[in-house]
């Protein structure tokens, strides 16, 4: 019976912590305004900086430094390289979160929402968060070697162009849909 009591205490604690998190709305979203237009930012997507990251992390540069420069410079370069890789990871996460915000805003403002789409999104964000944290810890503590990024280059440059255009397009479409809905609403028509 003590086992059952402990199990229920654990469940209740987890529920109360979830409740606390659920009721504690972040300051930013507490206004509940869904500004779809703000999601369509004019800036480049971070994935597009891949070529620069690649250049900064090229093996030739590192070998050259190790050959010609001092050990201190080489160490510093490795440190910087790690720093760049970590920053790049953070920016990838920002791209991901921006897309998620767009998806959530569209879902919240839609009269009907598909469970499968939403579950898929939740699953993708859980997988992304888990991988992101593990890779980040791996890079930070030097447990994972900083990738040379060469074979990634082609794939990412393709993705970068896609992301750049599609994010903009998605944001524009969403913002346009809001405008259209507002106009119809203003004319006394049921937009939904």
């Amino acid at each position, binding site marked *: 019976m003590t086992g059952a009591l402990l199990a229920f205490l654990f469940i209740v604690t987890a529920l109360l912590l979830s409740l606390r998190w659920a009721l504690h709305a972040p300051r930013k979203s507490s206004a509940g305004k869904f500004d779809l237009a703000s999601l369509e930012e004019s800036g480049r997507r971070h994935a597009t900086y891949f070529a620069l990251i690649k250049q900064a992390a090229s093996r030739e540069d590192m070998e050259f430094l190790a050959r010609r420069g001092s050990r201190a410079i080489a160490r510093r370069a490795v440190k910087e390289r790690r720093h760049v890789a970590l920053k790049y990871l953070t920016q990838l996460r920002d791209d991901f979160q921006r897309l998620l915000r767009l*998806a959530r805003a569209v879902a919240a403002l839609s009269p009907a929402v598909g469970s499968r789409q939403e579950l898929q999104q939740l699953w993708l964000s859980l997988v*992304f968060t888990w991988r992101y944290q593990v890779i980040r810890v791996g890079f930070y503590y030097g447990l994972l070697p900083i990738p040379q990024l060469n074979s*990634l280059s082609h794939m990412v440059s393709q993705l970068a162009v896609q*992301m750049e255009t599609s994010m903009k397009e998605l944001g524009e479409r969403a913002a346009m849909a809001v405008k259209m809905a507002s106009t119809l609403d203003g004319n006394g028509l049921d937009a939904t």
Partner: protein
Amino acid sequence: MATLPPFILLLWAISIVVQLTVLFLLVGKRHFHSLPLFSIYIVLNLCQAAFLYFVYSQFGYNSDVARQMFWISEAITLAAQTLAATEVLHRVLRAYSGIWGLAWRLIAAAVFIVVCYALASAGRTPEWRLMIADRGYHLTFAVALISCLLLVRFYSIPVDPVYKTILGGFCVFSCSSVVANTLLQALFLRRYPRSADVWNYLEMLVFIGVQISWAVALRQPVRAEAKPTLLPPSTYERLSPQVNARLRALNDLLSKLWRLEVLRP
């Protein structure tokens, strides 16, 4: 009533005063227009207290009749609690019909899972079935409500502080009932002589705390929120798969780093 400990009687009196205050605020601040089922729930709680007072004074606190009457009245107030919480949740989500539809599916899934568990555990120990059913109800209630609140947070839907306090209070009370029921069973099986009193103290103290928080929250009016303009249904159908495809592409990119495929020449 002589068998009821004086401290329980005191808590009972405090609870009635606080509930009357909540009712007064519901009427005085005109909350009952927007929350009729919640107002009925408060009235039913007061009626239950009066009814049980009558039953305990006629048949004694520890009699079988009193126990039966308690469970009958409890079933009614629990049904009212479900309706009241659903009403508040509906008021939060009524402008967001898509998310409300999603919340319903989530509630149904949570209810199905927890009710299956409660039925299975009540079948194992028939002598405790009412207590286990009660615990099962509170667990279902808390899981379903917290799932919906997580959904509300996930989609950044604004919730008025009054509604937040009411929903939070319901959850806290249900969670405490789960613990109190399990504690009662554990203490009783260990032959602790005052197990029923411990159960009563715990339930009543939390109930009073929740009622006080409701009274404090209900002093404020509910802010009128501007109704958001919904998008045409086709927007979601078109955009959502595309966004998911982009999310998957970013995930794939991370996956390459994860597998360290990049290190291969």
